[in-house]
């Protein structure tokens, strides 16, 4: 990679600086969607289905329309005139094409599905009008179980398909069957993740303003991917991208929920154009829990062929995923990645997978922070199962199967290449910090006294940055590139923009550090502008953990490019033939004479002034001005790794799980800002713990969502979570700018595996193994009752 400095020379990268975006957020001056005042804006609210599956027979809105303050009530038929439907038909083998209209027209597919939109002068009035609209439904058989959904006689969620099985993909290495058949030791393990939802504390919302004179649509919406969002909305409204501006201001969390263009948002935008005014919508929490986006409901089975030492010879994986009622993403989007990167830090030559994705009458699924998180629970749960079966220590089974330092780069059976990670080192380091051997002896002594403590280990290989090549080889549509610009104004003021949009990750600070490093200025001198499609260049947005490598990496490269231009000008001004012996440091030009760096009298401001206001002094052929643009497509995939160690106590009378210790040893490469990285690791790990122990979207057998409030859908409070200890063992990635790898999802992966394994370990004397989440006190009590 093109950079002249070694890692220890970084000054702005790696700086533990508090975030610049904090100021407005700490003082009540953030600008979230609802804080943006648009005089005269109308308010939308949505009529939603009380049924999981029903035909819409008629909608009678006369009485509601007569209410003072009500502008109109709009249905699927209206919207179909103004917008196109969403067709999801990637040319990928095994994935069925599907299509959805902007609002449903004939039938609804889940409890909370959309029926019509009310527009009124005020939100209270819109909600009053909602009570007056009569919708006549004919209930249909609800499809609520992903296994029964595959039965021949099952009702169809989408009648344009002949089955609810919307995607089915398989893969097998040449000899896997032979190896499986030839082993006498086959260990089968099940894993089942329950349905969850992202729960950003700021719900969804949008303000759409139609400028009838300029025929321009301006949208304020909380989105992780402003540019792809603009492309989508322009296409569906039959506008050119140049007629749409998308602005994502401060966003109160996303976690994957704020990527897709949602039907509500498109409806509001289409109505703004139809009504030639501004229309806004704020989702309430009930709607957010029922109908924004769900995630993660799947069932998994592994069959591991092993030898007598616990060495993995072959592995087969089956996944069935419940995708809900609509495909906002290609149906194979999530499960396929799980299958591709499954084996993580473990050696595996022979591998097969079978991935089924099924439609049901539930809210549509989408990616939630670490959509591939279950991989680490699957692999680490499989390691523990092997250890149990062969009566070996689970650590020894990991040791014998793990890829060692000298075996990287390692090509996985799925074809993906792992490099620049150190899972064995992070595991061994963690084992010595927690004193694994002593813990095992203490555990045995505790059990004698009726105290049930468990140790869970989870080694994580986190796929962080997805380059375009990965998407191509995985058969998922999409690009992995990102772009950035740096502009140095005539006064020397530095501005930077990156295509990605933030939802709380501190990108303004991190990207300022990356540009500052590349350019050679103080990070506080760099002003970052993101989340506005008129300002920032086209980028693919925030998802995966690509903010670091794709966002930060591109920003760094743009900074380097800017420095190159600055130094070329400086060389001319200093009457030198080349800029080879010059560099920028703290906004000044430095010169190397006989290995000695000294400051020249030239500053960035001098150079900027020349570039803009005295261009005849520029090197021959150089354009006036001081702007650079850079796009970058990362390697097919970058990986970070970590080892999570969790010690829990289980109260066998109450089923309560409490944390005794939680340690993470991690390697995420070159760190842009340690403070931010640790914050992301905390957030991700607690989100993983939360998913494992607390959260659960519950549907009854009729498809009624029973978890429509925060009193029913639980996330942990400060009183429920452990203190996390984090130890760093960073090694840079050799192929990315500055060696950045990315992180922010691995914590979820580690927690899911470590907590599940710890609880299983605690309950080993009862023969209980956790194969299902969430591990609530009730669930544990039921397991214990069955065993006694």
């Amino acid at each position, binding site marked *: 990679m093109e950079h002249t400095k070694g890692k220890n020379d970084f000054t702005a990268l790696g700086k533990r600086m508090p975030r610049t975006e904090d100021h407005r957020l700490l003082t009540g001056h953030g600008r979230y969607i609802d804080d943006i005042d648009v005089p005269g804006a109308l308010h939308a609210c949505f009529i939603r289905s009380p049924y999981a599956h029903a035909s819409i027979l008629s909608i009678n809105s006369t009485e509601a329309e007569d209410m003072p303050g009500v502008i109109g009530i709009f249905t699927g038929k209206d919207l179909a005139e103004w917008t196109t439907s969403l067709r999801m038909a990637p040319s990928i083998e095994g994935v069925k094409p599907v299509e959805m209209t902007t609002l449903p027209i004939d039938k609804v597919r889940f409890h909370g599905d959309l029926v019509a939109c009310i527009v009124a002068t005020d939100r209270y009035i819109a909600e009053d009008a909602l009570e007056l609209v009569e919708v006549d439904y004919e209930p249909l058989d609800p499809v609520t179980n992903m296994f029964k959904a595959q039965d021949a006689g099952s009702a169809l969620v989408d009648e344009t398909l002949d089955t609810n099985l919307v995607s089915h993909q398989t893969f097998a290495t040449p000899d896997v069957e032979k190896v499986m058949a030839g082993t006498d030791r086959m260990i089968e393990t099940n894993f089942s993740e329950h349905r969850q939802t992202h729960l950003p504390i700021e719900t969804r919302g949008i303000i759409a303003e139609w400028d009838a004179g300029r025929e321009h649509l301006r949208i304020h919406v909380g989105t992780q991917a402003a540019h792809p969002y603009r492309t989508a909305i322009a296409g569906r409204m039959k506008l050119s991208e140049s007629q749409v501006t998308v602005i994502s201001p401060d966003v109160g969390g996303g976690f994957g929920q704020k990527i897709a263009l949602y039907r509500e948002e498109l409806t509001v935008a289409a109505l703004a154009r139809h009504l030639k005014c501004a229309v806004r919508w704020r989702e309430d929490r009930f709607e957010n829990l029922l109908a924004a986006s769900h995630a993660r409901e799947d069932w998994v089975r592994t069959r591991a062929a092993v030898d007598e030492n616990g060495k993995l010879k072959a592995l087969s994986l089956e996944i069935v995923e419940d995708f809900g009622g609509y495909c906002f993403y290609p149906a194979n989007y999530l499960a396929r990645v799980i299958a591709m990167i499954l084996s993580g830090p473990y050696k595996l030559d022979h591998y097969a997978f079978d991935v089924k994705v099924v439609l049901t009458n539930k809210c549509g699924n989408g990616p939630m922070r670490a959509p591939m998180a279950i991989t680490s629970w699957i692999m680490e749960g499989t390691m523990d199962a092997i250890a149990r079966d062969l009566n070996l220590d689970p650590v020894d089974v990991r040791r014998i199967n793990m890829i060692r330092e000298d075996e990287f780069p390692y090509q996985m059976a799925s074809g993906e290449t792992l490099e620049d990670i150190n899972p064995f080192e992070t595991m061994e380091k963690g084992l010595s910090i927690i004193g694994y051997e002593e813990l095992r002896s203490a555990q045995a002594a505790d059990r004698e006294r009726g105290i049930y403590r468990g140790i869970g280990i989870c080694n994580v290989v986190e796929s962080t940055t997805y380059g375009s090549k990965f998407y191509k080889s995985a058969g998922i549509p999409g690009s992995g590139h990102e772009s950035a610009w740096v502009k140095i104004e005539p006064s020397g003021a530095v501005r930077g923009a990156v295509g990605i949009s933030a939802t709380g990750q501190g990108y303004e600070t991190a990207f300022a550090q990356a540009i500052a490093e590349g350019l050679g200025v103080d990070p506080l001198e760099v002003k970052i502008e993101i989340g506005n499609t008129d300002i920032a260049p086209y980028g693919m947005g925030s998802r995966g953990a690509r903010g670091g490598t794709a966002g930060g990496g591109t920003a760094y490269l743009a900074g380097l490019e800017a420095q190159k231009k600055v130094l070329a000008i400086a060389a001319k001004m200093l009457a030198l033939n080349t800029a080879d012996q010059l560099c920028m440091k703290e906004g000044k030009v430095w010169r190397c004479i006989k290995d000695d760096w000294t400051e020249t009298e030239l500053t960035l401001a001098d150079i900027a002034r020349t570039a803009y206001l005295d261009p005849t002094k520029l090197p021959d052929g150089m354009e006036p001005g001081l702007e650079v643009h850079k796009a970058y497509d990362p390697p097919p995939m970058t990986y970070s790794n970590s080892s999570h160690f969790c010690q829990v106590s289980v109260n066998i009378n109450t089923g309560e799980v409490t944390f005794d210790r939680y340690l993470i040893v991690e390697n995420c490469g070159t760190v842009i800002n340690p403070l931010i990285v640790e*914050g992301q690791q905390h957030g991700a790990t*607690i989100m993983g713990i939360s998913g494992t122990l607390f959260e659960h979207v519950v549907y009854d057998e009729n498809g009624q969502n029973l978890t429509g409030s925060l009193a029913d859908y639980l996330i942990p409070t400060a009183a429920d979570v452990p203190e996390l200890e984090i130890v760093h063992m960073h090694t840079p990635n050799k192929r990315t700018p500055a060696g950045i790898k990315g992180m922010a999802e691995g914590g979820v992966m580690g927690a899911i595996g470590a907590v599940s394994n710890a609880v299983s370990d605690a309950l080993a004397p009862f023969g209980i193994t956790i194969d299902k989440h969430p591990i609530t006190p009730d669930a544990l009590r039921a397991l214990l009752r069955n065993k006694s």
Partner: protein
Amino acid sequence: MKKVAITLNINNRDVDMLVEPRKLLSDAIREDARLTGTHVGCEHGVCGACTVLVDGKPQRSCLTFAVQTQGKAITTIEAVKGNNDGYSALQQALHEEHGLQCGFCTPGIIVTFEAYLKENTNPTEDEIRDVLSGNLCRCTGYQNIIRAIQKAAAVMRGETPGAAK
């Protein structure tokens, strides 16, 4: 519904407004007084994002009608500050310890603990966790918020900032 004229005292300023009796205090603060630092995360009293002080005591503004708070002193995030209009000790500590990410939950937490740290100047970690359990945060995992509150308490007691650790 018929609107009524009320006057709310928010951050030591009287604000006249014409509101329906059913208007929530959170909406009145945000829409009528145009102070948008108070956030609404659930509208059913669970998340704590909408917390304001009413006569110095934390209260969920989404569970309160605006008309009920006439004659009371309401304090919102916009009034929290330190000496010379800089940060309060708590704001400063949250900044230094990275106790906020998306920032949506932050005003509710600050307002709650500005009040609490006056009442209990030397809280234990368990006490902090217990009080903080009234505010949901989806981003931070709480650890840095707790560290920041400990640090702020130490600063407010006049101890060196590092002593809180």
